[in-house]
Structure formats: structure tokens, C-alpha cells
């Protein structure tokens, strides 16, 4: 029996959260080792498991995979969440890359000075409402299907749900002009594996707080 995938990262969302979501969506149990000190991080670097000296690191199928997108693409393909052909895969990639850009903004915002916080949040919400959410609302409207690509649950749906929930944490009414996204959110949240991941006690991580930011700064020394 194959060992469970193992994740190495800080005890928070950061760049690992999308990976946790995708594994959870696929119904795959995984283990986590949390980096909390500089010493642990340096040991991991010296061990030679980090190709470019960076985390996220996922040990899966005998490979030590780093680079978030490489890990996500592998998981999507392995668990049949990557479309049925190249044309579907490229659409999933485009949508996933777009939502990653949006979530990346949120991730970076946690590390900016506190006095810039409100301005950053406003910018993120504006981008969500003018650049990203309209695209997905339109896609759902045009084909009238339950999922973004190929009438089948894919990585793109998982990412979009993750992004929607993250933006809602910043502004609860952000979906007010997007009825199809509201329905999408409810629908995807009710998929059994997603429902389970959204419950308290799952491996889903909370939003970054000052404690998390301090920890990451300490471990990565910046």
C-alpha cells in the first residue's frame, strides 16, 4: 500500500494551502510536518530534499517535489482533475493560474506593513470583483454547466472555491453581484470531500495572523 503524501511547510496557509485543498478534494489523506524554527528549515535544506532550497515540499510516489505549480499539476493529473484532453487541460491551467494570482495577492498582503493593510484589502477586493470573478461568472453563464470545464469536477473548481472563500474573509459581500458564483460556491462546498475539508478539525489552515507572519519571517530570515 502506498504511503500517504507528506507535506513540509509552515503551520499556515501560504503556498501550501492550494495543495492541501487539492489533496482533500481528491479524497487523499496526507501527513504534515510543520517547520517552526530556522534550525528545522536549515536541516531540510542540508538534507538535499529541497531542489531550490525552498518549501513547499511534498513527498509523493517516491519523489521529493517542490515548486507549488509542479506539485499541483502532478496531483491534478494523478487524481483525474485535469480535464480529458489538452484543450480542457489548458483551460483548467488558465483558470487555475488566474485564481493563483488572486490568492497570491492575499498571501503577500499579510507580509506588508500594517498601515497598508486596508488599502491592500481594498485593492484585492476590487481585483476580485473586476478582473477575476466576472470571468468565471461569464464562463458558468455561457455553458450553464455545474463545473468550470468539461462538465466535470476539476482542479479549476477547487481553486475557484478556495479563492472565493479567501476573498469573502476580506469582504463578506464580495459575491453579491455574482449569482452563478454564489450557486457554484454552494454546490462545490457540498461535494462530500470538500464538505469534509470545510469542517472544523480538518487540515485546512486559518488565515495568516501576526504570529504566523513572525514565524515565517524568523524561519526564512527576511
Amino acid at each position, binding site marked *: 500500500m502506498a504511503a500517504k503524501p507528506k507535506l513540509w511547510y509552515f503551520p499556515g496557509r501560504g503556498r501550501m494551502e492550494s495543495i492541501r485543498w487539492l489533496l482533500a478534494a481528491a479524497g487523499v489523506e496526507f501527513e504534515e510536518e510543520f517547520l517552526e524554527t530556522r534550525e528545522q528549515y536549515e536541516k531540510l535544506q542540508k538534507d538535499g530534499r529541497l*531542489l*531550490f*532550497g525552498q518549501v513547499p515540499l511534498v513527498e509523493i*510516489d517516491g*519523489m521529493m*517535489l*517542490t*515548486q*507549488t*505549480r*509542479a*506539485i499541483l*499539476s*502532478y496531483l491534478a*493529473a*494523478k487524481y483525474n482533475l485535469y480535464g480529458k484532453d*489538452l*484543450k480542457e*487541460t*489548458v483551460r483548467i*491551467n*488558465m483558470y487555475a*493560474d*488566474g485564481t493563483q*494570482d488572486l490568492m497570491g495577492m492575499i498571501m503577500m498582503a499579510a507580509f506588508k506593513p500594517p498601515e497598508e493593510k486596508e488599502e491592500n484589502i481594498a485593492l484585492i477586493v476590487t481585483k476580485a470583483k473586476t*478582473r*477575476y470573478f466576472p*470571468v468565471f461568472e461569464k464562463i458558468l453563464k455561457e455553458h450553464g454547466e455545474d463545473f468550470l470545464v468539461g462538465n466535470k469536477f476539476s482542479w479549476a473548481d477547487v481553486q475557484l472555491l478556495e479563492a472565493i472563500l479567501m476573498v469573502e474573509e476580506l469582504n463578506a459581500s464580495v459575491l453579491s453581484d455574482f449569482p452563478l458564483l454564489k450557486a457554484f460556491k454552494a454546490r462545490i462546498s457540498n461535494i462530500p470531500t470538500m464538505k469534509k475539508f470545510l469542517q472544523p478539525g480538518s487540515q485546512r489552515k486559518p488565515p495568516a495572523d501576526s504570529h504566523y507572519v513572525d514565524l515565517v519571517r524568523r524561519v526564512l530570515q527576511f
Partner: protein
Amino acid sequence: MAGKPRLHYMNARLRMEPVRWLLAAAGVEFEEQILESREDMEKLINDGSLMFQQVPMVEIDGMKLAQTRAILNYIAAKYNLYGKDIKERALIDMYSEGIADLNEMILRLPIFPPDEQDAKITQIRERTTNRYFPAFEKVLKSHGQHYLVGNRLSKADIHLVEVIYYVEEIDPSLLTNFPLLKALKTRISNLPPVKKFLQPGSQRKPPIDAKTLEEARKIFKI
């Protein structure tokens, strides 16, 4: 007969150059729609041609593809530069992402003011010498093959050789202690389609100059 792929971007390397390299290496002829002004950019946005209102955008096989990674992965898969299975693809992705991180540092360099240039160049040197070049030298040493993955040309080789050229533009001596990377660069450069692309008069773009940087600031509003 399908039309040639059509690339929409300004007349500069920036984020489109890896796409030009990859198409060229695959022996695929392509056309370019050059953005010369903010008006050109706004026309594309208002056309609805840009999924997230951004370029690069590539018209290929009846699609308007956005997001550089999605574009590159589509081209690689279509032209068999993406390994033979998902495990090889994971390695190719991991290597490509690392190379993209180094390329990002280099392409951003001109944006920084003169008094920050030295520090940024030092950082590029340091990362090249201590993080990226050693990683790839080690990969090549570990299997002794002519290409990074699966004993076969892949997008990872093309992207790496491209960035080696950029590093050499900053300082040729940075390649000194990496004989296998030197050999890879020579080998890839001698592949007929790459050799052709490296010659004057090809669609390869020169390093950015002050005039083009100013143009980029206007077109992309940065």
C-alpha cells in the same frame, strides 16, 4: 491547414520570450501582433481577447490563451516537449518553475532605480551561483544524460538554456564552474531550430533598453 500561432505582446522579451524560444525550438513558425501603445493594449482588453486583461496572449488552435505557464504547457504538450508520463512532467514542471523564478529576477532588474541596481545584480549573482546553477548541474551529473529529464529534449532544457544566455549577459563568468550546464547550452544551441533562432534576423528579442522600458511602463501602466 491551421494558421500559425499568433503572439500578442510588445516588442520586448519580458514575459513572452520563453514562449518565442519554445515555439522556435519546436520548429513552429509564429506570427506576432506587436503592441506599440497603451491604445493597442486597451483595444485588446475591450475586444474581450484577454481573459484576465493581461498579456501574454497567444492565439493557437482556435483559442486565445492567457497566462504564460498555461501557454507554455500547452505548446510543450502539443509538440512533445513535456516528457512521457506525469512523473517526468512533474520533474519538468519543477525545473521550469525554478528557472522561471530566476528569469523573473532578471526581467525585473531594469525596473529598479539606479541606486538599487547593484544590490539586485548581487542577488541575481548569488541565487544563480548558490541556488539555481548548482541544482541543474547536479541533475545533469546524477544521470549523465544529455537532457534534464527522460533522456529527451523537453521544455525544461529550452527554458534553462534561455536563462543561461541571460545570466551570461550579466556576467559570463557565472557559468565557469558548471561544465555540464556549459555543455547543455552548446548542445541545445546547436539543434537546428535553436541555431536558427539564435541568428540575427530571427524573432528573438534583444535585452530591454531605456526606450523600450519607457514603452513598457506606458503600455502596461506600471
